[in-house]
């Protein structure tokens, strides 16, 4: 299986998604996939499938692995939380690569997010600015994840807890809360003497009574079985 072929010209006319769908086990598409990672970073898009395809090719030909690209893939995967993309990527990265400093840092960041340690996460992220600032949209993505976890957990959340989770304080937080109240149905309340309480939107996870009781519904196909009897 040749690596460099003169077919580069033809491949430009396919999108990367098409390449991954049609011809994923092909070392020639490696440069396209690497470019696509950079494109995801700069245009704030994301494709797990394409990135897994690239990590697989790196697995098949370790000499061609670019640790910089792998780091970017991992940051994008982190931004996809709560989806388990980060660990899906780690499964394909050799252990000795994971021992490198920048990957150890990323794994620690992932660990903090997986275990709800938001304050520790933001502290550590501040130390690894060079990794995370290289990917636009990182902060917002993690804040979205934090709010997701808070929405699963809290009906009414005290302001300091929210502030710590999304790493926004003071006036910026006020502005943020106003925006959420106007657009996402958040309600701001006065807590009993201890500051603001934020009422998060109702969903089936923080309001169990909203959980659709799927247990007692009977699908129509089952009823059709007894039509002959009833008829």
């Amino acid at each position, binding site marked *: 299986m040749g690596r460099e072929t003169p077919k580069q010209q033809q491949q430009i006319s396919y999108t990367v998604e098409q390449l991954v769908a049609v011809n994923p086990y092909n070392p020639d598409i490696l440069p396209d996939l690497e470019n696509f990672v950079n494109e995801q970073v700069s245009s704030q898009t994301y494709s797990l499938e394409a990135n*897994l395809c690239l990590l697989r090719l790196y697995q098949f030909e370790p000499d061609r692995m670019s640790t910089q690209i792998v780091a970017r893939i991992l940051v994008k995967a982190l931004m996809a939380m709560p989806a*388990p993309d980060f660990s899906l990527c780690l499964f394909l990265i050799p252990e000795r690569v994971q021992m490198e400093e920048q990957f150890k840092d990323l794994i620690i960041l992932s660990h903090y997010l997986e275990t709800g340690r938001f304050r520790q996460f933001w502290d550590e992220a501040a130390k690894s600015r060079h990794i995370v600032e290289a990917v636009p949209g990182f902060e917002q993505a993690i804040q979205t994840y934090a709010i997701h976890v808070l929405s*699963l957990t809290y009906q009414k959340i005290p302001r300091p807890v929210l502030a710590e989770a999304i790493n926004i304080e003071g006036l910026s937080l006020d502005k943020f809360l106003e925006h959420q109240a106007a657009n996402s149905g958040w309600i701001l309340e006065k807590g009993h003497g201890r500051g603001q309480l934020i009422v998060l939107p109702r969903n089936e996870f923080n309001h169990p009574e909203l959980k659709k*009781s799927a247990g007692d519904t*009977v699908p129509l196909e089952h009823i059709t079985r007894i039509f002959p009897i009833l008829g």
Partner: protein
Amino acid sequence: MAANYDYEEAPGTYDDVNRQDLGYDPNFVPDSVKSFVVHLYRHIREKNVYEIHQMYDISFQTLSDRLFKDTPWPSVDAVAHYVDNDQVFCLLYREMWFRHLYARLSPTLKQRIDSWDNYCSLFQVVLHRVVNMQLPNQWLWDMVDEFVYQFQSFCQYRAKMKNKTEQEIALLRQFDQAWNVYGVLNYLQAFVEKSNIIQILEQEKEGGEQFTANDGYDYSGGSNVLKVLGYFSMVGLLRVHCLLGDYQTGLKCLLPIDISQQGVYTSVVGSHIATIYHYGFANLMMRRYVEAIREFNKILLYIYKTKQYHQKSPQYEQILKKNEQMYALLAICLSLCPQAKLVEETVNSQLREKYGEKMARMQRYDDEAFAIYDELFSYACPKFITPSAPSFEEPLVNYNQDAYRLQLKLFLYEVKQQQLLSSVRTFLKVYSTISLGKLANYMEVDEPTLRSILFTYKHKTHAVDSDGKITSNADLDFYIDDDMIHVVESKPVKRYGDYFLRQIVKLEGVVTDMDRIKLE
């Protein structure tokens, strides 16, 4: 890649290290073998699928047990003239020849390479020529299954560089394309594409095709080989991706097959089990525990009810092994994600018997618990591989455990993150409401730490499914109002609807029976 028929050499000239053929003459063809190949050849030409299946499944095993317990079958050159030197038959014969070798003996490196060559030749024929055969599903499944198995075996073998002889290293360098991962994946992918199987399965839903209804067989005079190989290759791809650690893509390859229904994959017991085992394992690694539990439960019940029918079959041992492995995986899933109602009674009692004590210890999340998670995972996991070419630089090392160690490490890492959830669950069972401060006290942690633990509980019990939706698999749940935790236990819902349906049908049955009774 021309097949290399060099087994004409007398045993003495075999210069490989592992010689297992002392006293074996590859050219001696017993009468029973002559009869076997002649009849098999005729049945294949006449498309007598039932007879082919009998010969392939039963006669081949019987002859192997009787005459070739620890020697290979006669060489293909010795039997070729009984079958008109038919190229395709010879390729099929060699496929069986190598499968027998792998099962009973230890293949040499040269034999591994030759087997690869044979698969390439055979697959090229199926992919690029019009093949006019109908072969039994069992055989077609075995081809794909064995192909992936030999690939896995080769990777394991190749990764043990330390004690390789100079000859072996020279051969590895020379035949560096044998069992290369691109080749394996691309053959499987080629079968899927060339057979058009995905479109066929799609059209079936709208009634346009009869593939599943006919068990994959072609009743209009054509051949089932390419289509069924394409179908089983989807399972093959799932398996290879699991071996590489790419669970997401593996599941994606299986997607065209609807495992909630019967299908061609259930027509062969080996295929059924391999599919669900890998499906369940992939879901486990993707933290979709409920999905894994559901499927393991179904297949374990199925095996329990049907294994007696396979006692004489050559697959029996494999069935039993996979059965045990899936119980271990089920134990892991249920320890990480307790579910009260998902496991059927028979399966549950088997599970308690095999792993009841271990599961209790796993819930304690102490050092002993991690050791048990390690033990069960290591017992039940696939034989992960390192797909890249070996390094021939000194010093030569064995790296055949690397892939497995990585998957194990990451799995245990996930288990560790769930360490504190078990104690939270214990407290939540006891209280309907409790303040954060009080619970923090009981658990001997500070409030911020407790909050993190509660966040972890929520995050880990609310999995992201294949459509990106969040579903809760928590048997015990809670919400927090300011600083007060309110516990919500999901009550088991009484399924009135199902109950009434069953009783209606039952009553109808009784009335019908009564009507039939003629009173004297």
